[in-house]
């Protein structure tokens, strides 16, 4: 397996959240295989902390690029769509021919909700003339909440295993196999959604109490 150079776009405005935790693991797995990986935070380019022009060199030097992002309103967050639009306008020549893959993560367990995010990334890759290596969807990001995967017990180990499996494909320029998705998919029987919602709601009420009995049902825009 030849050493590859990866460029990872961490797409969350929360720089220490679950998308970063996933990006960090992907970087470590790439380095374990003798490849290199750079993580950049999309938010830093939006906020002007990093110069967009600097991406030209990073993209040119990379073999494989990834978007690792949370689900906001059923697809990529605004920042990431802004970023992809800008990449399309400015670096289409540099992106052509590179590999591209994506990882989407949602707070809620149903991974089918993440498909529009992954499809948008695939369509971006197709428009740019990139090679789409596939996407992975993780439901349950709210429980990870930025925890480093090696500190997330058995579930974290299973996600790392799934990512390692995916990296074997990615580093050979192959499509990510379905087994990787199987490994990271958290299966919660739908019957348990009711007790789960009751548990989550009790946490919400506790947080409201801690915030001075905040009226979280307030219809502020009808006042």
């Amino acid at each position, binding site marked *: 397996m030849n050493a590859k150079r990866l460029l990872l776009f961490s797409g969350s405005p929360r720089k220490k959240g679950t998308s970063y935790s996933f990006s960090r693991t992907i970087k470590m797995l790439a380095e374990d295989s003798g490849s290199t990986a750079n993580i950049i935070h999309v938010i830093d380019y939006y906020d002007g902390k990093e110069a967009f022009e600097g991406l030209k060199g990073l993209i040119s030097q990379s073999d494989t690029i990834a978007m690792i992002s949370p689900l906001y309103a059923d697809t990529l967050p605004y920042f990431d769509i802004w970023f992809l639009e800008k990449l399309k306008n400015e670096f289409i020549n540099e992106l052509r021919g590179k590999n591209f893959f994506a990882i989407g993560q949602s707070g809620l367990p149903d991974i089918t909700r993440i498909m529009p995010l992954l499809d948008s990334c695939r369509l971006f890759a197709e*428009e740019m003339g990139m090679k789409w290596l596939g996407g992975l969807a993780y439901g349950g990001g709210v429980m990870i909440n930025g925890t480093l995967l090696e500190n997330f017990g058995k579930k974290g180990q299973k996600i790392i295993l799934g990512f390692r499996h995916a990296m074997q494909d990615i580093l050979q320029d192959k499509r990510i196999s379905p087994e990787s998705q199987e490994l990271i998919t958290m299966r919660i029987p739908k019957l348990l959604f009711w007790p789960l919602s009751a548990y989550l709601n009790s946490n919400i009420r506790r*947080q409201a109490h801690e*915030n001075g009995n905040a009226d979280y049902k307030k219809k502020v825009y009808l006042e």
Partner: protein
Amino acid sequence: MSIVMLDAMEGENCISSKLRAKLAETGREIIWFELKNMSILPCRSCGACNFKSPGKCVLQDDSHEILRAVARCSTLVMLTPIRFGGYTSNLKKAVDKFMSLSLPLYTVKHGHLLHPTRYGSKFMIGIGVYGGNSKGQEDCFRRLVENNAFNMQYAHRTLILKSSEDMEKVKQEIGSLQKEVC
């Protein structure tokens, strides 16, 4: 009950004006937001709209005008060029703020965990303008509108307009929408 239009078209176009004229024929109040002329600060998922400022984003921007109108309307129409199978960044910036239209609580509906709506159910219409021939772009757009509507527990309809089509076809499509809105 009013109709709220989030118009994310990026330049001069005949679709916005035809749609505006057609919707005016419904006789209902139309509240039209041209997003390219608005100042909306993006959601950074700070969580303040849950408890610190319940139901209201703490950022001072034009999104409050939109959210106030959506909270009171019966029909929400989103008009956008299709970008990577979804909304343009300009529309997505507004849609990301819809988080505050739901409660932080959870409920189970149709076998899914969802957030209950804060302002009741509405009718959502997603109109994508797309000049290409990729079925994947159109399918992704339809799925995104469907998912948005499902999460917000709104009824919905999706319409895809070809930017190159003649205006008669656009008028017919908008006419069929008008019947649903009425």
